[in-house]
Protein backbone atom coordinates (compact mmCIF):
# COMPACT_ATOMS: atom_id res chain seq x y z
CA UNK A 1 0.00 0.00 0.00
CA UNK A 2 1.23 3.48 -0.82
CA UNK A 3 2.15 5.66 2.13
CA UNK A 4 1.25 9.34 2.47
CA UNK A 5 4.63 10.48 1.17
CA UNK A 6 4.25 8.45 -2.01
CA UNK A 7 0.82 9.95 -2.68
CA UNK A 8 2.19 13.44 -2.08
CA UNK A 9 5.07 12.84 -4.49
CA UNK A 10 2.62 11.65 -7.14
CA UNK A 11 0.35 14.66 -6.56
CA UNK A 12 3.24 17.15 -6.63
CA UNK A 13 4.49 15.63 -9.89
CA UNK A 14 1.04 16.24 -11.41
CA UNK A 15 1.01 19.83 -10.13
CA UNK A 16 4.40 20.42 -11.72
CA UNK A 17 3.07 18.97 -15.00
CA UNK A 18 0.12 21.37 -14.77
CA UNK A 19 2.58 24.20 -14.30
CA UNK A 20 4.44 23.15 -17.44
CA UNK A 21 1.16 23.57 -19.31
CA UNK A 22 0.79 27.01 -17.75
CA UNK A 23 4.27 27.97 -18.93
CA UNK A 24 3.50 26.82 -22.47
CA UNK A 25 0.20 28.68 -22.44
CA UNK A 26 2.10 31.67 -21.11
CA UNK A 27 4.40 31.60 -24.14
CA UNK A 28 1.35 31.83 -26.39
CA UNK A 29 -0.05 34.71 -24.36
CA UNK A 30 3.29 36.48 -24.79
CA UNK A 31 2.95 35.89 -28.54
CA UNK A 32 -0.46 37.54 -28.45
CA UNK A 33 0.52 40.51 -26.34
CA UNK A 34 3.97 41.11 -27.82
CA UNK A 35 3.67 40.03 -31.45
CA UNK A 36 -0.14 40.36 -31.86
CA UNK A 37 -0.25 36.78 -33.05
CA UNK A 38 -3.66 35.26 -33.70
CA UNK A 39 -5.03 31.79 -34.47
CA UNK A 40 -3.82 30.30 -31.24
CA UNK A 41 -7.18 29.34 -29.77
CA UNK A 42 -7.23 25.69 -30.95
CA UNK A 43 -3.77 25.15 -29.46
CA UNK A 44 -4.55 26.80 -26.13
CA UNK A 45 -7.91 25.01 -25.90
CA UNK A 46 -6.13 21.69 -26.33
CA UNK A 47 -3.57 22.59 -23.67
CA UNK A 48 -6.33 23.68 -21.35
CA UNK A 49 -8.05 20.30 -21.72
CA UNK A 50 -4.78 18.58 -20.89
CA UNK A 51 -4.50 20.67 -17.72
CA UNK A 52 -8.08 19.82 -16.76
CA UNK A 53 -7.33 16.12 -17.15
CA UNK A 54 -4.35 16.52 -14.86
CA UNK A 55 -6.54 18.34 -12.36
CA UNK A 56 -8.97 15.40 -12.47
CA UNK A 57 -6.03 13.06 -11.84
CA UNK A 58 -4.96 15.11 -8.82
CA UNK A 59 -8.50 14.98 -7.41
CA UNK A 60 -8.68 11.22 -7.97
CA UNK A 61 -5.32 10.66 -6.30
CA UNK A 62 -6.27 12.84 -3.35
CA UNK A 63 -9.58 11.04 -2.88
CA UNK A 64 -7.88 7.66 -3.10
CA UNK A 65 -5.37 8.72 -0.44
CA UNK A 66 -8.22 9.95 1.81
CA UNK A 67 -10.02 6.62 1.44
CA UNK A 68 -6.98 4.44 1.91
CA UNK A 69 -4.97 6.37 4.48
CA UNK A 70 -7.47 8.57 6.30
CA UNK A 71 -4.69 11.10 6.91
CA UNK A 72 -4.71 13.61 9.74
CA UNK A 73 -3.10 16.91 10.70
CA UNK A 74 -0.32 18.04 8.33
CA UNK A 75 -0.92 15.11 5.97
CA UNK A 76 -4.64 15.86 5.83
CA UNK A 77 -4.04 19.56 5.19
CA UNK A 78 -1.54 18.80 2.42
CA UNK A 79 -3.94 16.44 0.65
CA UNK A 80 -6.87 18.84 1.06
CA UNK A 81 -4.87 21.83 -0.22
CA UNK A 82 -3.50 19.84 -3.17
CA UNK A 83 -7.04 19.52 -4.49
CA UNK A 84 -7.51 23.28 -4.27
CA UNK A 85 -4.09 24.05 -5.77
CA UNK A 86 -4.91 21.83 -8.75
CA UNK A 87 -8.19 23.72 -9.16
CA UNK A 88 -6.45 27.11 -9.05
CA UNK A 89 -3.85 25.99 -11.61
CA UNK A 90 -6.64 24.73 -13.86
CA UNK A 91 -8.44 28.06 -13.56
CA UNK A 92 -5.22 29.90 -14.44
CA UNK A 93 -4.93 27.74 -17.56
CA UNK A 94 -8.44 28.74 -18.56
CA UNK A 95 -7.65 32.41 -17.99
CA UNK A 96 -4.62 32.13 -20.26
CA UNK A 97 -6.71 30.43 -22.92
CA UNK A 98 -9.33 33.15 -22.56
CA UNK A 99 -6.76 35.81 -23.47
CA UNK A 100 -6.07 34.02 -26.75
CA UNK A 101 -9.84 33.71 -27.24
CA UNK A 102 -10.39 37.44 -26.78
CA UNK A 103 -7.52 38.13 -29.18
CA UNK A 104 -9.39 36.22 -31.91
CA UNK A 105 -12.21 38.75 -31.78
CA UNK A 106 -10.24 41.88 -32.56
CA UNK A 107 -7.59 43.13 -34.91
CA UNK A 108 -4.68 44.00 -32.67
CA UNK A 109 -2.26 45.21 -35.31
CA UNK A 110 -2.44 48.85 -34.24
CA UNK A 111 -3.05 48.22 -30.57
CA UNK A 112 -0.70 49.34 -27.87
CA UNK A 113 -0.47 46.29 -25.55
CA UNK A 114 2.72 47.09 -23.63
CA UNK A 115 0.98 47.81 -20.31
CA UNK A 116 -1.12 44.68 -20.54
CA UNK A 117 1.99 42.64 -21.36
CA UNK A 118 3.77 44.10 -18.35
CA UNK A 119 0.76 43.27 -16.15
CA UNK A 120 0.73 39.73 -17.52
CA UNK A 121 4.44 39.19 -16.81
CA UNK A 122 3.98 40.31 -13.22
CA UNK A 123 0.96 38.02 -12.74
CA UNK A 124 2.76 35.11 -14.38
CA UNK A 125 5.68 35.59 -12.00
CA UNK A 126 3.20 35.59 -9.10
CA UNK A 127 1.82 32.24 -10.24
CA UNK A 128 5.30 30.75 -10.40
CA UNK A 129 6.26 32.12 -6.98
CA UNK A 130 2.96 30.91 -5.48
CA UNK A 131 3.45 27.38 -6.76
CA UNK A 132 7.07 27.32 -5.61
CA UNK A 133 6.01 28.49 -2.15
CA UNK A 134 3.48 25.65 -2.07
CA UNK A 135 5.84 22.92 -3.19
CA UNK A 136 8.58 24.15 -0.86
CA UNK A 137 6.20 24.92 2.03
CA UNK A 138 7.69 28.42 2.11
CA UNK A 139 5.48 30.40 4.47
CA UNK A 140 7.28 33.73 4.19
CA UNK A 141 7.17 33.81 0.40
CA UNK A 142 3.46 32.90 0.46
CA UNK A 143 2.69 35.73 2.89
CA UNK A 144 4.76 38.27 0.90
CA UNK A 145 2.99 37.24 -2.30
CA UNK A 146 -0.45 37.99 -0.92
CA UNK A 147 0.73 41.45 0.08
CA UNK A 148 2.11 41.99 -3.45
CA UNK A 149 -1.34 41.57 -5.02
CA UNK A 150 -2.08 45.24 -4.38
CA UNK A 151 0.55 46.16 -6.99
CA UNK A 152 -1.33 44.15 -9.64
CA UNK A 153 -4.65 45.70 -8.66
CA UNK A 154 -3.12 49.17 -8.90
CA UNK A 155 -1.64 48.50 -12.34
CA UNK A 156 -4.95 47.07 -13.51
CA UNK A 157 -6.73 50.27 -12.45
CA UNK A 158 -4.06 52.35 -14.23
CA UNK A 159 -4.68 50.41 -17.44
CA UNK A 160 -8.42 51.06 -17.17
CA UNK A 161 -7.81 54.76 -16.58
CA UNK A 162 -5.48 54.89 -19.60
CA UNK A 163 -8.05 53.09 -21.76
CA UNK A 164 -10.60 55.71 -20.76
CA UNK A 165 -8.48 58.62 -22.03
CA UNK A 166 -9.94 58.38 -25.55
CA UNK A 167 -6.63 57.90 -27.33
CA UNK A 168 -7.31 54.18 -28.11
CA UNK A 169 -9.55 52.56 -30.69
CA UNK A 170 -12.67 50.70 -29.60
CA UNK A 171 -11.13 47.31 -30.39
CA UNK A 172 -8.00 48.13 -28.42
CA UNK A 173 -10.01 49.34 -25.45
CA UNK A 174 -12.07 46.19 -25.44
CA UNK A 175 -9.13 43.84 -25.89
CA UNK A 176 -6.86 45.46 -23.32
CA UNK A 177 -9.71 45.92 -20.85
CA UNK A 178 -10.81 42.32 -21.09
CA UNK A 179 -7.27 40.91 -21.09
CA UNK A 180 -6.22 43.04 -18.13
CA UNK A 181 -9.27 41.92 -16.20
CA UNK A 182 -8.46 38.27 -16.93
CA UNK A 183 -4.85 38.80 -15.85
CA UNK A 184 -5.94 40.52 -12.65
CA UNK A 185 -8.11 37.47 -11.83
CA UNK A 186 -5.17 35.21 -12.62
CA UNK A 187 -3.12 37.06 -10.00
CA UNK A 188 -5.98 36.62 -7.53
CA UNK A 189 -5.72 32.86 -8.03
CA UNK A 190 -1.98 33.05 -7.40
CA UNK A 191 -2.88 34.65 -4.05
CA UNK A 192 -5.46 31.96 -3.29
CA UNK A 193 -2.77 29.41 -4.02
CA UNK A 194 -0.37 31.16 -1.61
CA UNK A 195 -3.16 31.18 0.96
CA UNK A 196 -3.37 27.40 0.64
CA UNK A 197 0.34 27.24 1.45
CA UNK A 198 -0.30 29.21 4.65
CA UNK A 199 -3.11 26.86 5.68
CA UNK A 200 -1.11 23.78 4.79
CA UNK A 201 1.87 24.86 6.89
CA UNK A 202 0.14 26.53 9.84
CA UNK A 203 -3.39 25.09 9.92
CA UNK A 204 -4.77 28.63 10.03
CA UNK A 205 -7.54 29.51 7.59
CA UNK A 206 -7.66 33.09 6.38
CA UNK A 207 -10.10 34.68 4.03
CA UNK A 208 -8.52 36.90 1.42
CA UNK A 209 -10.36 39.20 -0.95
Amino acid at each position, binding site marked *: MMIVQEYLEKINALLIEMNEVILTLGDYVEDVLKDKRGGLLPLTTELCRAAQMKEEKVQETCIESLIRL*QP*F*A*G*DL*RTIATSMKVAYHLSRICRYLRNITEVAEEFSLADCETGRTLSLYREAEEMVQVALRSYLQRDLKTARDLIKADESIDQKYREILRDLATGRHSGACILFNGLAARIIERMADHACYLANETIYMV*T*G*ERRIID
Partner: protein
Amino acid sequence: MYHKLEVKNLSAWFNEKQVLKDVSISFPSNNVTAIIGPSGCGKTTFIRCLNRMHELVPGARVQGKVLLDGRDVYRDMDAMEVRRKVGMVFQKPNPFPNMSIFENVVAGLKLLGVRDKKVLSERVETKLKEVGLWEEVKDDLRKSGAMLSGGQQQRLCIARALAVDPEVLLMDEPTSSLDPASTAKIESLIRELKEKTTIVIITHNVQQAARISDFTGFLYLGSLVEFGETKKIFESPKNPLTERYVTGRFG
Protein backbone atom coordinates in the same frame (compact mmCIF):
# COMPACT_ATOMS: atom_id res chain seq x y z
CA MET B 1 -20.10 24.62 28.77
CA TYR B 2 -20.74 22.52 31.85
CA HIS B 3 -18.07 20.01 32.77
CA LYS B 4 -19.60 16.90 34.31
CA LEU B 5 -16.29 15.39 35.25
CA GLU B 6 -13.10 17.23 36.10
CA VAL B 7 -9.69 15.78 36.73
CA LYS B 8 -7.20 17.93 38.58
CA ASN B 9 -3.50 17.16 38.88
CA LEU B 10 -4.05 13.43 38.80
CA SER B 11 -1.05 11.17 39.27
CA ALA B 12 -1.15 7.39 39.65
CA TRP B 13 1.33 4.72 40.58
CA PHE B 14 1.69 0.97 40.55
CA ASN B 15 3.96 0.52 43.56
CA GLU B 16 6.97 2.75 42.76
CA LYS B 17 6.21 3.09 39.08
CA GLN B 18 4.43 6.32 38.20
CA VAL B 19 2.06 5.80 35.27
CA LEU B 20 0.15 9.09 35.29
CA LYS B 21 1.80 12.46 35.77
CA ASP B 22 -0.19 15.46 36.93
CA VAL B 23 -3.03 15.07 34.44
CA SER B 24 -5.69 17.79 34.43
CA ILE B 25 -8.66 17.57 32.09
CA SER B 26 -12.33 18.58 32.10
CA PHE B 27 -14.94 16.46 30.34
CA PRO B 28 -17.80 18.48 28.81
CA SER B 29 -21.24 17.22 29.72
CA ASN B 30 -23.16 15.25 27.07
CA ASN B 31 -20.17 15.02 24.80
CA VAL B 32 -17.94 12.18 23.73
CA THR B 33 -14.32 12.65 24.74
CA ALA B 34 -11.71 10.31 23.30
CA ILE B 35 -8.41 9.61 25.00
CA ILE B 36 -5.81 8.51 22.50
CA GLY B 37 -2.18 7.54 22.85
CA PRO B 38 0.27 4.74 22.13
CA SER B 39 0.22 1.46 24.00
CA GLY B 40 1.48 1.83 27.56
CA CYS B 41 0.88 5.59 27.75
CA GLY B 42 -1.50 5.22 30.72
CA LYS B 43 -4.89 5.39 28.96
CA THR B 44 -6.45 2.45 30.78
CA THR B 45 -5.01 3.46 34.14
CA PHE B 46 -6.38 6.95 33.59
CA ILE B 47 -9.90 5.80 32.84
CA ARG B 48 -9.82 3.36 35.77
CA CYS B 49 -8.94 6.24 38.09
CA LEU B 50 -12.15 8.00 37.08
CA ASN B 51 -14.42 5.45 38.74
CA ARG B 52 -11.99 4.28 41.43
CA MET B 53 -11.20 0.96 39.80
CA HIS B 54 -7.48 1.68 39.89
CA GLU B 55 -7.53 1.36 43.68
CA LEU B 56 -8.63 -2.28 43.34
CA VAL B 57 -5.18 -3.23 42.10
CA PRO B 58 -2.75 -4.16 44.91
CA GLY B 59 0.02 -1.56 45.23
CA ALA B 60 -1.94 1.03 43.23
CA ARG B 61 -2.00 4.64 44.44
CA VAL B 62 -3.67 7.85 43.28
CA GLN B 63 -2.97 11.52 43.98
CA GLY B 64 -5.00 14.51 42.83
CA LYS B 65 -8.71 15.07 42.38
CA VAL B 66 -11.50 13.59 40.28
CA LEU B 67 -14.62 15.74 40.61
CA LEU B 68 -18.06 14.51 39.56
CA ASP B 69 -20.42 17.49 39.57
CA GLY B 70 -17.90 19.15 41.84
CA ARG B 71 -17.75 16.29 44.36
CA ASP B 72 -14.43 14.56 44.86
CA VAL B 73 -14.99 10.88 44.03
CA TYR B 74 -12.14 9.88 46.33
CA ARG B 75 -13.12 11.98 49.34
CA ASP B 76 -16.78 12.90 49.12
CA MET B 77 -18.28 9.68 47.72
CA ASP B 78 -18.05 5.96 48.48
CA ALA B 79 -16.77 3.63 45.77
CA MET B 80 -20.19 2.01 45.17
CA GLU B 81 -21.84 5.38 44.52
CA VAL B 82 -19.01 6.37 42.20
CA ARG B 83 -19.27 3.17 40.16
CA ARG B 84 -23.05 3.49 39.91
CA LYS B 85 -22.77 7.03 38.59
CA VAL B 86 -19.71 6.32 36.46
CA GLY B 87 -20.32 3.13 34.49
CA MET B 88 -17.75 1.22 32.53
CA VAL B 89 -17.62 -0.90 29.39
CA PHE B 90 -14.52 -2.97 28.85
CA GLN B 91 -12.37 -3.92 25.89
CA LYS B 92 -13.69 -7.47 25.59
CA PRO B 93 -17.40 -8.11 25.95
CA ASN B 94 -17.83 -9.71 29.36
CA PRO B 95 -21.44 -10.71 29.94
CA PHE B 96 -21.83 -12.75 33.10
CA PRO B 97 -21.60 -16.23 31.58
CA ASN B 98 -23.97 -17.99 33.95
CA MET B 99 -26.69 -15.39 33.63
CA SER B 100 -29.40 -14.96 31.02
CA ILE B 101 -29.65 -11.89 28.84
CA PHE B 102 -32.37 -10.58 31.15
CA GLU B 103 -30.33 -11.17 34.30
CA ASN B 104 -27.25 -9.58 32.76
CA VAL B 105 -29.11 -6.33 32.10
CA VAL B 106 -30.59 -6.11 35.59
CA ALA B 107 -27.54 -7.36 37.52
CA GLY B 108 -26.56 -3.85 38.62
CA LEU B 109 -30.09 -2.90 39.53
CA LYS B 110 -30.45 -6.00 41.70
CA LEU B 111 -27.22 -5.11 43.47
CA LEU B 112 -28.85 -1.78 44.28
CA GLY B 113 -31.79 -3.65 45.79
CA VAL B 114 -34.38 -3.29 43.04
CA ARG B 115 -36.59 -6.38 43.14
CA ASP B 116 -39.89 -5.30 41.53
CA LYS B 117 -40.29 -7.60 38.50
CA LYS B 118 -42.31 -5.06 36.54
CA VAL B 119 -39.61 -2.40 37.06
CA LEU B 120 -36.91 -4.86 36.08
CA SER B 121 -38.76 -6.02 32.94
CA GLU B 122 -39.42 -2.46 31.85
CA ARG B 123 -35.77 -1.56 32.39
CA VAL B 124 -34.59 -4.56 30.35
CA GLU B 125 -36.78 -3.59 27.41
CA THR B 126 -35.86 0.10 27.60
CA LYS B 127 -32.13 -0.50 27.80
CA LEU B 128 -32.03 -3.22 25.18
CA LYS B 129 -33.96 -0.89 22.88
CA GLU B 130 -31.49 1.90 23.63
CA VAL B 131 -28.59 -0.25 22.49
CA GLY B 132 -30.52 -1.57 19.48
CA LEU B 133 -30.59 -5.16 20.71
CA TRP B 134 -34.24 -5.58 21.67
CA GLU B 135 -35.54 -6.77 18.30
CA GLU B 136 -32.69 -9.26 18.05
CA VAL B 137 -33.13 -10.86 21.49
CA LYS B 138 -36.66 -10.13 22.73
CA ASP B 139 -37.69 -13.77 22.28
CA ASP B 140 -34.51 -15.13 23.87
CA LEU B 141 -34.27 -13.12 27.07
CA ARG B 142 -33.89 -16.24 29.18
CA LYS B 143 -31.05 -17.58 27.07
CA SER B 144 -27.44 -17.11 28.18
CA GLY B 145 -25.79 -13.84 27.22
CA ALA B 146 -22.73 -15.85 26.27
CA MET B 147 -24.65 -17.27 23.27
CA LEU B 148 -24.77 -13.90 21.52
CA SER B 149 -22.28 -12.77 18.88
CA GLY B 150 -19.33 -10.59 19.95
CA GLY B 151 -21.03 -7.40 18.82
CA GLN B 152 -24.31 -8.34 20.48
CA GLN B 153 -22.47 -9.23 23.70
CA GLN B 154 -20.81 -5.82 23.75
CA ARG B 155 -24.17 -4.09 23.25
CA LEU B 156 -25.54 -6.25 26.06
CA CYS B 157 -22.69 -5.06 28.29
CA ILE B 158 -23.49 -1.46 27.37
CA ALA B 159 -27.17 -2.11 28.23
CA ARG B 160 -26.02 -3.56 31.56
CA ALA B 161 -23.92 -0.47 32.26
CA LEU B 162 -26.82 1.82 31.25
CA ALA B 163 -29.38 -0.04 33.37
CA VAL B 164 -28.38 1.87 36.51
CA ASP B 165 -28.59 5.20 34.65
CA PRO B 166 -24.97 6.25 34.95
CA GLU B 167 -24.18 9.93 34.50
CA VAL B 168 -20.83 9.14 32.93
CA LEU B 169 -19.96 6.15 30.77
CA LEU B 170 -16.33 5.06 30.48
CA MET B 171 -15.46 2.87 27.53
CA ASP B 172 -12.10 1.13 27.30
CA GLU B 173 -11.50 0.27 23.63
CA PRO B 174 -15.06 -1.09 23.35
CA THR B 175 -14.77 -2.17 19.72
CA SER B 176 -11.22 -3.51 19.55
CA SER B 177 -12.41 -7.12 19.42
CA LEU B 178 -15.35 -6.54 17.07
CA ASP B 179 -15.83 -6.85 13.30
CA PRO B 180 -16.47 -3.68 11.20
CA ALA B 181 -20.27 -4.06 11.17
CA SER B 182 -20.47 -4.50 14.96
CA THR B 183 -18.01 -1.62 15.40
CA ALA B 184 -20.23 0.63 13.26
CA LYS B 185 -23.26 -0.23 15.42
CA ILE B 186 -21.42 0.53 18.65
CA GLU B 187 -20.04 3.78 17.25
CA SER B 188 -23.51 4.85 16.17
CA LEU B 189 -24.81 3.92 19.61
CA ILE B 190 -22.13 6.02 21.30
CA ARG B 191 -23.24 9.05 19.29
CA GLU B 192 -26.83 8.48 20.44
CA LEU B 193 -25.95 7.83 24.08
CA LYS B 194 -24.27 11.18 24.53
CA GLU B 195 -27.72 12.80 24.54
CA LYS B 196 -28.19 11.34 28.02
CA THR B 197 -24.67 10.58 29.22
CA THR B 198 -21.20 12.03 29.27
CA ILE B 199 -18.91 9.57 27.53
CA VAL B 200 -15.17 9.03 27.88
CA ILE B 201 -13.73 6.53 25.44
CA ILE B 202 -10.25 5.15 25.17
CA THR B 203 -9.11 4.08 21.76
CA HIS B 204 -5.82 3.42 20.05
CA ASN B 205 -7.66 3.77 16.74
CA VAL B 206 -7.22 7.42 15.84
CA GLN B 207 -9.70 7.14 12.97
CA GLN B 208 -12.32 5.96 15.43
CA ALA B 209 -11.56 8.85 17.78
CA ALA B 210 -11.96 11.24 14.85
CA ARG B 211 -15.25 9.63 13.83
CA ILE B 212 -17.07 9.55 17.12
CA SER B 213 -15.65 12.06 19.57
CA ASP B 214 -16.34 15.74 20.15
CA PHE B 215 -13.16 16.29 22.16
CA THR B 216 -9.87 14.45 22.17
CA GLY B 217 -7.01 14.22 24.62
CA PHE B 218 -3.60 12.86 23.65
CA LEU B 219 -1.80 11.03 26.43
CA TYR B 220 1.88 10.19 26.12
CA LEU B 221 4.16 8.64 28.74
CA GLY B 222 1.55 9.33 31.41
CA SER B 223 1.19 13.04 30.61
CA LEU B 224 -1.60 14.84 28.81
CA VAL B 225 0.14 16.39 25.82
CA GLU B 226 -2.84 18.10 24.23
CA PHE B 227 -6.59 18.35 24.70
CA GLY B 228 -9.15 20.10 22.53
CA GLU B 229 -11.95 19.85 20.03
CA THR B 230 -11.53 16.73 17.93
CA LYS B 231 -11.58 18.68 14.65
CA LYS B 232 -8.71 20.84 15.89
CA ILE B 233 -6.67 17.93 17.20
CA PHE B 234 -6.95 16.00 13.93
CA GLU B 235 -6.72 18.93 11.55
CA SER B 236 -4.29 21.32 13.20
CA PRO B 237 -2.80 20.01 16.43
CA LYS B 238 -0.72 22.55 18.31
CA ASN B 239 1.84 20.19 19.76
CA PRO B 240 4.34 18.60 17.31
CA LEU B 241 4.16 15.38 19.34
CA THR B 242 0.40 15.14 18.73
CA GLU B 243 1.01 15.86 15.03
CA ARG B 244 3.54 13.04 14.86
CA TYR B 245 1.23 10.61 16.64
CA VAL B 246 -1.95 11.26 14.66
CA THR B 247 -0.06 11.11 11.37
CA GLY B 248 1.36 7.74 12.33
CA ARG B 249 4.98 8.88 12.64
CA PHE B 250 5.29 7.04 15.93
CA GLY B 251 3.29 4.88 18.32
